[in-house]
């Protein structure tokens, strides 16, 4: 079974803290994604990576950065957490199948910034 594992289910952080969200996948997938999910706004793409050390901005990259030093690991970094970054964060990975790209998701990290 494909497994995408996010390091924490729940996190509470203070405003201004630097926050690291970690994601690991065990299927040797090339592509990895970070989304945030908010009521009424759906899933919004923050960043994605199609190879080690490669990254691309998604639709809402402001306030975030990412790191992909190894193929299996994709980290999302909140440089200085703010209350408007309170959200559910979802990591996903997919193989490079041009005609049949399917995303496999982690269980999500619910981040609260106080």
């Amino acid at each position: 079974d494909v497994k995408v594992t996010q390091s924490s289910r729940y996190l509470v952080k203070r405003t201004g803290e630097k926050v690291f969200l970690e994601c690991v996948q065990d299927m040797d997938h090339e592509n990895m994604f970070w989304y945030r999910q908010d009521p009424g706004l759906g899933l919004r793409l923050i960043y994605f990576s199609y190879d080690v050390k490669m990254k691309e901005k998604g639709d809402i990259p402001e306030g975030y950065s990412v790191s992909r030093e190894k193929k299996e690991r994709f980290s999302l970094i909140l440089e200085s957490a703010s209350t408007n970054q309170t959200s559910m964060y979802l990591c996903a990975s997919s193989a490079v199948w041009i005609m049949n790209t399917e995303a496999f998701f982690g269980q999500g990290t619910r981040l609260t910034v106080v």
Partner: protein
Amino acid sequence: TQLLEQSPQFLSIQEGENLTVYCNSSSVFSSLQWYRQEPGEGPVLLVTVVTGGEVKKLKRLTFQFGDARKDSSLHITAAQPGDTGLYLCAGASHDKIIFGKGTRLHILP
């Protein structure tokens, strides 16, 4: 910007009824997926459709991809309380996967 519009946003129906939810876009996608998400969990893939006009069945769920590969529908026959959840459609384009906002389905026993 590629957008996927899902309708309806919310649907609450009685057990045993049939329903259809829709996913529409002005863009063409190489493939389209449907996911189901339960509270506190990540989305789980239900099906992928690739060919225009394709129909796939998963027990009581029927998925159809539009001929032009811009839209899709999910039809549930004789809905059960276990079908309750958030249904998301997603389109694949190049390396990106773009999601609709979802249809929140609630089946009343």
